[in-house]
């Protein structure tokens, strides 16, 4: 039990440390540009972050159990292509979205199956899926984009509800729902148990494989959904979409206080992690500084956040 208290308190501290970092960043950004602290800019930030934000929620689930999912960007692209092609062929929007989500969940299921049943390390299993799903995305149209999607479909990614981007509302809602699941459901508690100490989790009768496989299904499903939102926002399906999304999502989850060895993390922290990364790009764009500095600064911030975590927690637990 003592270890549990330490873990809990360290998680709280980790989460505070990122809030602290967010606060510093917002203050600095507001000093750098008068346009930063405006409603319009925050709404933009929300919209810009929502796609990678939705991907990162799924990634959080996977990372909590000590896994990793490199296939999110490719599944996102494939989903965008599928939904685009279905809509282009006159299918009803809701049905097209449903079919696409099923495909995403299925690919996640294959990831889960290969990692748990075939015992292939998650890094390699999802790497294989990353390559294969990208190939499928390119194959759907022979590498060509699909444009001219119905304007009704664009509401999802580009529409507004009470002046707030719908994609941002979806992201916030998904974060709240999944935060609730992680905190209060049996499944959520099992995730932390499996990630923290698989041996103990197994002995207490948890079906570890089932729990782990489920996280990959969730990740595949949410990546597919993010792909739908992106296609809807850009009004085009592109087979090259989501390139590098996996690394951004992993960085956001870790910034949010998760450990890659599993057992810690949460979607609220991830939410802030995603925002943090978006704000860095946003502020540099506002003051018109070059991309090179953005990249350097992004690296510095990630390291700083992790060092801060270590420092606050007082050495790593594992």
């Amino acid at each position: 039990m003592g270890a549990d208290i330490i873990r809990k308190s360290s998680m709280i501290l980790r989460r505070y440390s990122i809030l602290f970092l967010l606060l510093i960043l917002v203050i600095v950004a507001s000093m750098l540009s008068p346009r930063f602290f405006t409603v319009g800019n925050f709404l933009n930030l929300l919209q810009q972050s929502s796609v990678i934000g939705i991907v990162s929620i799924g990634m959080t689930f996977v990372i909590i159990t000590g896994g990793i999912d490199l296939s999110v960007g490719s599944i996102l692209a494939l989903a965008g292509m599928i939904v685009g092609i279905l809509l282009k062929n006159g299918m009803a929007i809701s049905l097209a979205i449903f079919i696409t989500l099923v495909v995403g969940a299925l690919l996640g299921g294959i990831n889960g199956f290969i990692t748990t049943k075939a015992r292939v390390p998650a890094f390699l299993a999802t790497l294989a899926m990353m390559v294969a799903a990208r190939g499928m995305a390119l194959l759907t149209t022979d590498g060509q984009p699909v444009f001219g999607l119905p304007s009704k479909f664009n509401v999802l990614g580009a529409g507004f509800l009470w002046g707030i981007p719908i994609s941002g509302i979806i992201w916030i809602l998904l974060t709240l729902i999944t935060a609730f699941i992680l905190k209060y459901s049996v499944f959520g508690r099992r995730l932390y148990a499996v990630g923290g100490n698989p041996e103990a989790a197994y002995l207490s009768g948890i079906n570890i494989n089932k729990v782990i496989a489920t996280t990959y299904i969730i990740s595949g499903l949410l990546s597919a959904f993010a792909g739908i939102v992106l296609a809807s926002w850009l009004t085009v399906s592109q087979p090259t979409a989501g390139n590098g999304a996996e690394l951004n999502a992993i960085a956001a989850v870790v910034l949010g206080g998760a450990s890659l060895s599993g057992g810690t993390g949460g979607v609220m922290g991830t939410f802030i992690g995603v925002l943090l990364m978006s704000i860095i790009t946003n502020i540099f764009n506002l003051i018109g500084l070059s991309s090179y500095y953005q990249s350097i600064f992004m690296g510095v911030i990630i390291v700083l956040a992790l060092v801060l975590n270590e420092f606050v927690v007082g050495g790593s637990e594992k």
Partner: protein
Amino acid sequence: MKKFMKKASLLLAAVFVFMLAVGCGQSQKQTSSSSSPSSTSEQKKVIIGFSQVTLQSPFYVELMKAAENEAKAKGAQLIYVDAQENIQKQNNDVQDLITKGINVLLLNPVNPDGVAPALAAAEKANIPVVTVDRPTTAKVATFVGRDNKEMGRLAGKKAVELLGGAGQAKGVIVEIQGAAGDKVMMARRDGFHEIVDKEPGIKVIQSPYCDYTRSKAVKAFQDILQANPKIDLVYAHNDDMALGAVQVLEQNKITGVKVVGVDGLMEALVAIKAGKYDATVLNDPQYLGKLAVDTALGVLNGEKYPEFIDAGTGLVDKQNVDQYLNTSLTFAPSKK
């Protein structure tokens, strides 16, 4: 039982991987026209090898397909390989092509200097090399490509015209930039500035690098719009990014901002037709692929070519958009 399950699932995984591999092999067979050269025909078929920089870009896929069709039409055979933006893979690929016994090599280099081993191997095997779309530093038979600087100039001229004409042009231009350190980006940037920098009334705001992708351009343009609410024209180094800007303008219900892109992407032409977009500059991959194959066959026949063969370009705006509109294509055709 457990042991059996584990074994069975391993077997299943192996079968899955195998099927994937076979599937890939199958689709390869369908897409590449590499039927083994028939020994029955009296004349041995000419084999053209094409090492393409990447097949993850619509432009290069179209270029590839056009080259394939042209080779078929001319009775030659084309074998292609995809370097996946990886210079080492490209050098190995070319080596494999030479082993397969190609007669001439079409090369779109990942990097102008990095393909030295490939060029050396081709020279050793007495195989002439024609570069396509991107040049090499070392001398080859000829380079079939386009003048991206000229594309930038055409876009610049149109931009000046849209903002009031030479000498009186006034306004703020946002320039959405391609990829850092990229030669195409530099050419499209420099050509554009050659024209607009002469106009004292024009101010240009340059975006961060958006890697020619729409999602990055949308984000960057949203931020720039926050910092500079008053802009008059958007120029992007490709249509995909410019279409992202159109999206942002529509979303913010901003009208009256002119948009100019490069590439002749059909989606941009549709937007021109709808009055949401002002101009794009042609960059037709189909013609480039056709010309590359014709040149390669010409080189084999001993014809002499200049160092650079220009596949040409042109401007599309609302006056002439109807001549190019064909939504079954991804890029506008340059030769009507």
